[in-house]
Every structure is written in structure tokens, then in C-alpha cells.
């Protein structure tokens, strides 16, 4: 039984804690969180600000290491890795989508999507893969546009293509619709959900929005660094 869970689990985290030292004061952002997310799941992480959801996302996305606890991402134990190995894991296994898009304004949509592949070592068909990813988010005709020439929704689509391009095990979206109006936000959410439906991409969405959470299969509620899980 135990082995079966591990096989299907893309994220298996046990008793994660994270303690920040703010001057003299110790801040306990996570106080023992265990998460098990299976391949192909859509999970929403919710909670009030200061509940530790950003910290959890950073750790699950391998941007940060937990103070203690175990974390296995797609079969690799993360907590023992060094900076470069973490960078490698982020590159291969995680796709990030941010609230503020975080595109490089000087380069084209295509170059932005290509960026993760450039850090992936030798990828022979880089340009083609980036093109395919852009087409899959419906921006095949906007490849040579710069981010400033695109609308907010289009920019977020570029960011989604960028998250997809390396074919990651999970996509982590941090308030992906936070900077968009409701209509466009819904389109972006639909796009993300369709990725999950069509390709089985595991989706972890950090959000405040009940409407988004309602569309996920599972909601993880965080409060004061602890989980109160609901279906």
C-alpha cells in the first residue's frame, strides 16, 4: 500500500517546517505540513495572508528548502540537494506561473518561452519546442511580439507556455489570475484546467479566489502554518 502511494505521488512531503529568523524573533511559517499530491491532480492552496501558503509553494517548487521534514518531488529527495541541483530540479520538474507574469520585457514571446530550455543544457530543437508550446496556448501568431505589445491575458499565456515548455511534472501557479479581470482570468483558468484534462499535468494553484478553488479537485487550507484539509 505504502509503495503504491509513492508510485502515484508526484509530491510527497512529510512534516515540513520552515523557520525564519527575523532579527531576534523566530517566525514559524510552516509548523509541520504533510502533503501528498498525486499525478494529474488539480490542487488549490488557500489560506489568509501569513498562513504560510507562499512558503509552502516556494518549498514545493524547490525555490527554498524546508528547515526540517522530508520532501520527495517526482521520485527525487529534495531536502538534501545543493543550489545547483535545486536549479536543475526547478528547470526539469517545475513550471512556474506568477501573478505578475514575470516576462523579460526586452525579448520576444518566443525567446521568453525558450528561456527554460536554454538553462536545460543541450536541447537541439529548442526553437521548435518553444513554438509548439506557444501554439498550444493559442499564441501562434504572436511569437515575435514583445511582452509590452501583448495584453495581460496574452502575457499570462506566454508565461503558461514558458511553464509548459520543459514538460514539467508539476505546474505551480501563484495567483495566476490576480492581475487579470474576471473574464480574462476565467480564460486563463480554463486554459490551465484544459492542460490538466488533455495532458494530465499536475496543477497546484495558490489563490484567494473561491471560484478558482471550486474548480479544483482538492483544496488545501493553510492556517498559521498548519493544514486543515477539505474535499
Amino acid at each position: 500500500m505504502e509503495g503504491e502511494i509513492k508510485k502515484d505521488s508526484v509530491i510527497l512531503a512529510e512534516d515540513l517546517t520552515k523557520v525564519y529568523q527575523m532579527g531576534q524573533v523566530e517566525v514559524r511559517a510552516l509548523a509541520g505540513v504533510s502533503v501528498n499530491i498525486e499525478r494529474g491532480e488539480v490542487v488549490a492552496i488557500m489560506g489568509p495572508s501569513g498562513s504560510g501558503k507562499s512558503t509552502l509553494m516556494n518549498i514545493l517548487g524547490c525555490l527554498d528548502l524546508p528547515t526540517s521534514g522530508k520532501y520527495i518531488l517526482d521520485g527525487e529527495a529534495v531536502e538534501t540537494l545543493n543550489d545547483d541541483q535545486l536549479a536543475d530540479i526547478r528547470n526539469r520538474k517545475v513550471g512556474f506561473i506568477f501573478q505578475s507574469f514575470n516576462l523579460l520585457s526586452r525579448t520576444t514571446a518566443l525567446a521568453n518561452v525558450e528561456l527554460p530550455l536554454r538553462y536545460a543544457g543541450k536541447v537541439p530543437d529548442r526553437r521548435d519546442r518553444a513554438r509548439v508550446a506557444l501554439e498550444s496556448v493559442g499564441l501562434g501568431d504572436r511569437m515575435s511580439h514583445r511582452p509590452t505589445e501583448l495584453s495581460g491575458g496574452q502575457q499570462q499565456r506566454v508565461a503558461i507556455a514558458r511553464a509548459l515548455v520543459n514538460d514539467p511534472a508539476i505546474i505551480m501557479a501563484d495567483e495566476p489570475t490576480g492581475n487579470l479581470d474576471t473574464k480574462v482570468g476565467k480564460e486563463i483558468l480554463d486554459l490551465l484546467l484544459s492542460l490538466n484534462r488533455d495532458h494530465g499535468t499536475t496543477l497546484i494553484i495558490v489563490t484567494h479566489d473561491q471560484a478558482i478553488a471550486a474548480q479544483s479537485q482538492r483544496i488545501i487550507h493553510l492556517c498559521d502554518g498548519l493544514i486543515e484539509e477539505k474535499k
Partner: protein
Amino acid sequence: MNIGQSIIEALETLSGNKLRSGLTILGIVIGVGAVIAMLAVGQGAQNTITGAISGIGTNLVFVISGNDLLDVRNPKPLTLGDAQAIGDPFAAPDVLAVAPIIQGRVDVTTSGQTMSTSVTGTTPQYFSLQNYSLLEGDFLTQENLQGNASAVVIGPGVADKLFNRRNGVVGETIRINGQPFRVVGILQSKGGGMFGSQDNQVIVPFSTAQTRLIHRSVFNKVDQLYVQAVSAKAVPLATDEIKQILRQRHRTPVGVDDFTVFSQADFLSIATTVTGVFTIFLGGIAGISLLVGGIGIMNIMLVSVTERTREIGLRKALGARKRDILIQFLIESSMLSLIGGIIGILLGWFLGYVVGRIASATGNPFSPAISLNAILLATLFSAAVGLFFGIYPANRAAGLEPVEALRYE
């Protein structure tokens, strides 16, 4: 990450802020330009001076009275007798030729023109010692010397000034200090020498000079002896032989010599040392401006790292390793300094050219020499400046924590 692509990306980034990049590059341009120009001027000065020394003749040894290192009481003057003794092939086998020199200032006139110039009284050997060649006429002869002849060989500058021409002057008469002399030859131009232009001198037989033009307290006194050794290797031997002979004749076999012998090579090495120090000095001062330019690069790269903290965070989130970020910023700073270096080389070359033009316009022909070494040195040095001053900012960028950097506003 592939370096070619990184370079293109760095250039795109730099061109995204043209004014800032341009001003930073300007600092390096001025630094490199100044270094190149100063090295060129120094090298040019060295070439001119060593060229002038070599132009005097080959394998020369100079003898003057007195001792420039130690104080000697009543040094005996050098005389014609000394010159003859040194010219004795049995006493000094390594000496090829000796020319005694006596020099002074005279007024030279023709019917219409007057000029004040230097006169040299010497022997026929002087011309071969000095590598002189003639535009027309002949050198002075042994007969001129023995006959106290009123014959004169004039430099081309003198011909220009007195006759406004350089041809057909042989046979004309000029007056030196009021006494008539017949022009027997005109020298070819040799350009400026160490002690004023050799083109403006007049040369008369030694005997004529000392009896009629230059009066010295001691008869047959000589100002200098020019001695030519048989070969470059024989210069030290010839020097020793001259010293032996003069010690005997001056009766100073022990104790301090009352004369000084130095060779052209001594002269050359002194001149090379002096101009070398001069070049280093100029280059060093110019190098300070290159250093300031480098600090400019560091400053702008630090600003850039701060401005692009989020970008760095994003790149790290997408999988950039420390090394990738480090290289990205190092390439940017190196590009700044490399572009500055290339433009600076052109500027330095131009400055050197201008200095050369100004020098020749003011009558001191002098060509600044830009050596390949100087260009290589400046290019390498500016690239090194870019790397060195880029390392700290790039390290700062590479060391940023992804979480912190992404959160940065």
C-alpha cells in the same frame, strides 16, 4: 548556455539602455585611448631619439676632457696629439678612425643673407665617421687640412637660408665671421640631431678653424674626439685602448682619469632607459583613467544588478544556476569594456596621429609609433578591467536567493 547567444543577449540588454551603456563605454574609451596615445608618443620619442643617436654613425666612441663622475683638478685638455696617438694602428688596433672636433658659434653671410650657426673644425675622417653623404661637391680633403684652406662644407639648411637653393652652390663664396670661404660641398639632410639640427652647421678644416675662427687658450686643443671602432664587438676593446693611451699621455696611470670615454651604445642605453621611464610614466598616468573607467563599469553593473533583481529571481526559478547568472553579468561587463577598448584604440591611434602632425608642423618631425604590443596590451587590459570590475556585481547577482529576488519590488 551557449556563449554566442549570451553575447547577443548581453548586447541586447546593453542597447536597451543606450545612454547609460554609452557613458560607461566612454569612460573606457578615454582610458584606453589615453593609454594607447601615450604609449605611442613614448615609443615615438624613443624611436626618434635612438634613431638620432644611431644616425651619428656606427660603432662610435666619444672622448671628452674631464671626468663627469669624479672631481678632477686641472684636467689636461685633449689635443691633436692625443687624436694622432689614438689613431696609431699599432697602439690601438681596434680603432678604425679618429676625428678631433672643435666647435663654436659663427655668423655666416652672403651678399644678402646672414645666419648665426655652429661651425665644426675637424679632419676628413669626420665625414665617414658621421655617415655623411653629399648632395654635391666633395668632403674636405687632407690637402685642405694641411693648407689651412678656406674651404667649407655646408649643411642643406645653410644652403636653403643663404642661397634659397641646394644645387649649384658649390664654388660660391660665403663669409664666416667676415672671412671668405669657398663652398666645396653640400651635405645631404640628416634631420634633427641630439644637439640641434645637423643640417644647419658648417664644417671647415680643423687647422683653419683653430687659427681663424675659434680661439682656444691651448693651441691644438680639441673639444671632443670622435673615434670609430673597427666593429661593434671591438667597441669595448677600442675603449680600453683609448683609455690606456690617454692615461699614458696625460700621466694619470694611477688615480683618477681626467677624461671620459663613452660609446654610442652607452648613449643609446641611457636614452632608451630615459625614454622607457618616460613611456611608463605617461602610460601609468593614462592607466589611472582606465582604472576610473573600470570603476564606472562596476558602478553601473551594481545598479543594473539591483534593477534586475526580479529578472535574476525569475531566471533562477526557471533553472538558471549560479554560474549562468555569473556568466551573464560578466559577459555584459566585458562587452562594455571590450567595445570601449576597440573604440579607444581607434581614438588613441587618432590622438597619436594628431600629436605627430602637430610635432611635424612645429618643425620637430616625430612619428608616434603604435605597436601591435600596445594594442594587444590595451585590449587585454580593458577586457581584464571589465572582468575584474564585473566580478563583484556578477557575484552579487549570482548569490541572490531566488525567493528573495522574486519578491523584490
